[in-house]
């Protein structure tokens, strides 16, 4: 259960982007959040994934109230979320080869010994060949890089996935492939998902239910 209670957040305390927003995700549920660009839906997703501290409100993750955000959140809480961002170029460190990009979370939590097994398995799952995994971000396409970013989000087997406009930069076939990977992972792990986007058709077909941003802010 992921509960956002009366969240007020933004980048300036005097002028928050949104006030008092409530959203609840049942265990294993996938929710699509629809809204025009600039409305604050990405900020809400970042609050949910413990990446942006809200000005007010409460976040409850599987019954546990979040006490801190970013580095102030305990590691187990942070890694409970797998996050995929809109722009793969900006969300990949340009100096790391795709292989290291995917392995980075394992190394960060001290599970380096599993890199050799897990990384090739995930690479195969998102459809990246061995040669591509040795390349650096500037040597692959946006779609290939986003596949690697999805693999990175899944490598610690998160209980919640947060996809912030994951497919906005991608063509239809890559979009379909990535959505398939996400759904396959959710089926076997029972993870819940918050997908943010403005593509109504895609989110309505992908998610258990969709929420329009206007309903959240009005309610």
């Amino acid at each position, binding site marked *: 259960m992921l509960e956002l209670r009366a969240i007020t957040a933004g980048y300036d305390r005097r002028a928050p982007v949104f006030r008092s927003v409530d959203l609840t995700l049942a265990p294993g549920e996938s929710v699509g959040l629809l809204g025009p660009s600039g409305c604050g839906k990405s900020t809400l997703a*970042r609050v949910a994934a413990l990446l942006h501290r809200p000005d007010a409100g409460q976040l409850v993750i599987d019954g546990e109230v979040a006490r801190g955000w970013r*580095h102030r959140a305990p590691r187990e809480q*942070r*890694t409970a979320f*797998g996050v995929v961002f809109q722009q793969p170029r900006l*969300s990949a*460190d340009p100096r790391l080869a795709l292989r290291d990009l995917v392995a980075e979370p394992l190394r960060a*939590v001290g599970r380096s010994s599993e890199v050799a097994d897990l990384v090739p398995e995930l690479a195969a799952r998102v459809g990246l060949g061995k040669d591509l995994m040795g390349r650096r971000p500037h040597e692959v396409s946006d779609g290939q890089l986003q596949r690697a970013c999805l693999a990175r989000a899944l490598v*610690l087997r998160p209980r919640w996935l947060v996809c912030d406009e994951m497919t906005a930069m991608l063509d239809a076939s890559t979009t379909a492939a990535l959505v398939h990977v996400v759904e396959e992972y959710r089926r076997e792990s029972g993870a819940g998902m918050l997908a943010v986007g403005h593509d109504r058709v895609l989110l309505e077909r992908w998610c258990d239910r969709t929420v329009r941003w206007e309903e959240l802010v009005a309610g």
Partner: protein
Amino acid sequence: MADIVWRAHGGVRRSTRAWRVRTSAVIVAAVVLAVLVVPPLVNLDEQAVDLAAKLRPPSLAHPFGTDDVGRDLLLRCVYGLRVSLLVGVVAAVVATVIGTAVGALAAASGGWVDRIVMRLVDIFSSVPHLLLGIFIVAMFRPGVWPVVVSVALTHWLSTARIVRAEVLSLRSRPYVDAAISGGASRLRVAVRHLLPGVLPQAGLAAVLMVPHAIWHESALSFLGLGLPTHQASLGTLVQSARGSLLAGDWWPTLFPGLFIIVPTLAIAGLAGAWRERINPRRRSELML
């Protein structure tokens, strides 16, 4: 009729730039070779006094002439450059390390730590740094290390600012968000993602600082506060030549002066070319 040929402008400028880089590279290579190879090879005493041959103008035996106690000026210039270069490089490296550490700390901590540290940097910057440098060397006995300490302690400020700005910009990239979500600690984010991003900037700042540090060493020695007068450095050479210049003897001033200007401009020229490579938008003049 569609015979328009589009031409690139600025071709001439580019060729002069390439020429400047090549000349700079040759001079820097010659300087490094001279200070590393000549002293051990020739095994001459640059402090050998020959009062019978004092203040001789340039000749075949003494290409740069001799000074007021008959020491060979070419030899003293090479040894002086050796000392000045050592002081310049060590001071620049130390200053860059301090500046990088302070800038990174300020940016990584944020909040009141950042505010206090950066206000301190502002306060230090408001004092002319030659004055501050004089104050620091005056506390010690003359020698190489007080000069290094003085130059290093007065030159980390701009590096701290550059590094802080760079870290602040890198810190807000989504890949740092991704690292946090992937369980990376503060230290891991700093070492793995932020530090590699600022190292090119810091390295460039260090190279740009070498000529500046050499100038400071010369200035301090010229004022009589840096190195002891018997130790040849470019600053002490110019300083001790002042008397003979008034008597009309030009060579003891001219050659050490050229030894200060030409190598430092060459180093700055190379650093400028490097900066244009990593940051092509900022067309720049020499920054000393």
